């Protein structure tokens, strides 16, 4: 015990707790809320509607001249109102359900989605000399050396939440939704995992923060325009990287049950799918889990292919302006560290907007089309891509 206490790194502990609270409650939760708001507003403008524009931030009550608006569009407090509504609604448990599993399912959906955020490097490092912290603090909760594997291992647990919800509800539509969902998630996990193998081969690395650092110095995987990125081999490797990006992104749509792969909850056939029997906060947890999974998936995609927290053309920008935009271990200014965090979440948010845009563009696939696409196209494509990458790496090795 004494040894344990002596070895306890207090700075690390406090920093970790602060990071967990910051990431979960100050970033992901509000981001989920505002993704829902964005979803409603974007779907509205795509369909020539107005969307929720009433629940404003009443700054006029506090003596400001105008209510808070973005681009002249109100309704920014809508997510808060929605959250309040979910808390205040009656939490109804139907009598025909299996109560234990019925209560367990929403937790099993939200927990894996939030757990995977632990290995996401959402910023480079923060130099907190001003606060008297000697070591710069890494902006990742758990800097694991098996980042993507951890994410896949945990996020595949998310299917249990859905299956148990469908089973415990003891009703046919949730049951069908749960069955569909498990089939879909298991199928697409294969291509999801296989699609990033080429990327891992190129990085030679399973640590997500090191991948971000590499891309910061040597060009994003999909944008190799500076550092080592200008070498011939990186440009040739763009072919497998593009294929893997495509397969990964589409599989992620399927993994997170988004349109065009939202068969587990297709309203026209299954009422609401696996969460038909849920109400109030338990329903909100499903909702939260789904959007959190979307955010984490986007984060992973951004980290692997689009440079994570790195600012585009950072080394070149540093040379041009004299201000250090790129990351340098132990010598990154505080402002750059903050900029990196902002960059990461801006990229993730752009990705989520893309998710939403696609949702309101495409119709839903038929179930057999979905399975065919997963097993006959993406699985083979991802597998062939692994060999292609190996071949290319052998022919034109990276430095």
């Amino acid at each position, binding site marked *: 015990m004494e040894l344990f206490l002596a070895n306890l790194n207090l700075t690390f502990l406090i920093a970790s707790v602060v990071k967990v609270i910051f990431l979960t409650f100050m970033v992901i939760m509000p981001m989920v809320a505002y993704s829902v708001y964005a979803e409603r507003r*974007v779907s509205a*403008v*795509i369909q*020539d*509607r*107005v969307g929720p524009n009433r629940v404003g931030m009443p700054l006029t009550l506090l003596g400001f001249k105008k209510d808070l608006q973005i681009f002249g569009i109100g309704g920014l407090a809508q997510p808060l109102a929605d959250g309040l509504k979910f808390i205040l609604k009656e939490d109804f448990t139907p009598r025909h359900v299996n109560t234990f599993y019925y209560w367990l399912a929403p937790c099993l959906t939200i927990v894996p989605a939030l757990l995977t955020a632990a290995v996401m490097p959402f910023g480079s490092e923060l130099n907190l000399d001003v606060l008297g912290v000697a070591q710069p603090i890494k902006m990742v909760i758990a800097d694991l050396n098996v980042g993507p594997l951890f994410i896949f291992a945990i996020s595949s647990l998310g299917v249990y939440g859905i299956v148990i919800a469908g089973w415990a509800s003891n009703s046919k539509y949730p049951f069908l939704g749960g069955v569909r969902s498990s089939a879909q998630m298991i199928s697409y996990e294969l291509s999801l995992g296989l699609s990033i193998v080429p990327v891992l081969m190129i990085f030679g690395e399973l640590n997500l923060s090191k991948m971000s650092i590499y891309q910061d110095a040597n060009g994003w995987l999909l944008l190799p325009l500076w550092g080592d990125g200008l070498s011939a081999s990186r440009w040739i490797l763009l072919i497998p990287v593009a294929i893997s990006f495509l397969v990964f992104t589409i599989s992620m749509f399927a993994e997170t049950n988004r349109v065009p792969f939202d068969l587990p909850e297709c309203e026209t056939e299954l009422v609401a799918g696996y969460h038909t029997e849920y109400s109030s906060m338990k329903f909100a947890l499903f909702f939260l889990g789904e959007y959190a999974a979307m955010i984490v998936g986007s984060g992973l995609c951004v980290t692997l292919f689009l440079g994570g927290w790195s600012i585009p053309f950072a080394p070149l920008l540093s040379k041009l302006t004299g201000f250090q935009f790129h990351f340098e271990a132990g010598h990154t200014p505080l402002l750059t560290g903050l900029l990196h965090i902002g960059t990461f979440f801006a990229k993730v948010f752009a990705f989520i907007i893309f998710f939403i*845009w*696609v949702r309101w*563009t*495409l119709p839903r696939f038929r179930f057999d089309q979905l399975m065919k696409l997963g097993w006959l196209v993406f699985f083979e494509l991802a597998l062939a891509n692994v060999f292609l990458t190996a071949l290319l790496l052998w022919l034109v090795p990276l430095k």
Partner: protein
Amino acid sequence: MAFVTVERPKLAWHEKIFLSTFVKGLKVTLGHAIRTFKTLRGSKTVVTMQYPEQKWDDQLPEYYRGVPALVTDEQGRERCVSCQLCEFICPPKAIKIIPGEIPSTDPWAKVEKRPAEFDIDMIRCIYCGMCEEVCPEQAIFLRKDYAVTGESRAEMVHDKERLYEIGGVRTGLVNKWNELK
């Protein structure tokens, strides 16, 4: 039997794998999004009416059926003689009338009856206008008010006073009860 064979359109390879069609779809939705977003800025909507601020009250047609109300004539006499026809015809049974006698001292004593109570339950009312149609005295009319709100069920029952308040005076209709005929 005559029939037409419809050829399936020949799709190029990029259309078959949803590549070009997907991009086309994204373009369409983005176009709509940008166009609508531009009109939305500053809360100026082209098609959507922002209800409580904007209303169509001045554009309601003549035949618009709003809340039912009772009217008085130019002499201030209640037109209703509590014949209860509207109560009987009312499909959702929203109207309740308790007839009352007009005392012989009243200048309108020969009308004999007027409603002692006249309640319309606005939660039940379906705005069908049958009461107006059936009324032999032209005493009940559907007005153009449509926003009926209340915080309790009791508040949503319009009593006689409220009905006359909404209805007001109607002139120039039948005047069969007048002395000067």
